[in-house]
């Protein structure tokens, strides 16, 4: 009885594995305006979180705000040209990779994912 139950369970897993396979390679990414102001993309892919983490402590606790390593400026260039956001869609700059890698992004619980210039325009009244 138990054996049967487990084999049924296992069978159920097979289509799931197929499904995962099918979706994986289609990995679309909207890099917004893009550009290379900090380091090359390969380096950034691997290390951006360390920069963000180090700089956030400096910015909040010591008031050391840098142009180059500011999250706001990352968003300024990398927000989509369509909706001014790095998180609004499936293929938005931050979301796309993070969902592919299954890593939760904590930044945008508090930080705005919208380009500041666009936000200012919208809230100018």
């Amino acid at each position, binding site marked *: 009885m138990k054996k049967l139950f487990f084999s049924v369970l296992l069978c159920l897993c097979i289509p799931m594995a197929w499904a995962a396979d099918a979706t994986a390679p289609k990995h679309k990414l909207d890099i917004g305006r893009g550009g290379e102001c900090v380091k090359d993309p390969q380096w950034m892919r691997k290390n951006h979180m360390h920069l963000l983490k*180090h700089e*956030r*402590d*400096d910015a*909040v*606790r*010591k*008031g*050391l*705000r*840098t*142009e*180059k*390593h500011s999250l*706001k400026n990352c*968003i300024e260039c990398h927000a989509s040209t369509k909706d001014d956001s790095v998180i609004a869609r499936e293929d938005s700059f931050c979301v796309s990779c993070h969902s592919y890698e299954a890593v939760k992004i904590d930044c945008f*619980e*508090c*930080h*705005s994912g*919208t*380009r*500041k210039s666009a*936000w200012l325009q919208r*809230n100018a009244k």
Partner: protein
Amino acid sequence: MSDIDLTRRNFLKTSAGAAAVAIAPGMMLFQVAHGESEGASSKVRWGMLIDTTQCKEGCNDCVTACNKENGLSGETKTTDSQWIRKIEIKDVSSGRELSLPMMCQHCEHPPCVDVCPTNASMKRADGIVLVDKHRCIGCRYCMMACPYKARSFVHEPLSDQNPDVPRGKGTVESCTLCVHRIDQGLKPACSEACANKAILFGDLNDANSEIAQKLRTVASTQVRAELGLNTGVRYQGL
């Protein structure tokens, strides 16, 4: 002989190169961190002097300006954040009435910083008391400890925050003295919005600043001075 010399020279060259490679990124980070911005300095102590005689009852301009600047909803349900609020007070014995704004007093010895288990509540070198929301776990002990009820807890998920003012569900927040404006050389929004110029902002440590000069000439009080917290926000005419 020459063989050995050559290898030695090569060895020195490569090791110097290797050392340079090893140090360079660190140096670069150092330059980036210290070259572009000096950060908060302990030579400065930001503060405010609030002239209650100039503060009009019923006027809410400072509150509205704060809400707009920091992206607060402006609603006043018990679960909504209020960084600055107008308090109407009436002396029980004399009947004298006053209206004044109340917000984080940016204490020199802030109880919220003492009680915070994770150092999320912290005082910047220039005297601004902040919540580092990267560390706040939302225990609300600072809200219990604050003698001014200056802090609010974010009860709901937020979206579309001001890019300069990150705020989010499950963390505690309060008046930042508009730290994002101060770091750009601007005044806090409430101070700028007050038509009667009742909120004077400046550096308490700079003897030549307007605020320091005024504090020398007029009588001012700290709210709950008996607690000995040495607040950065002072009141005149209280």
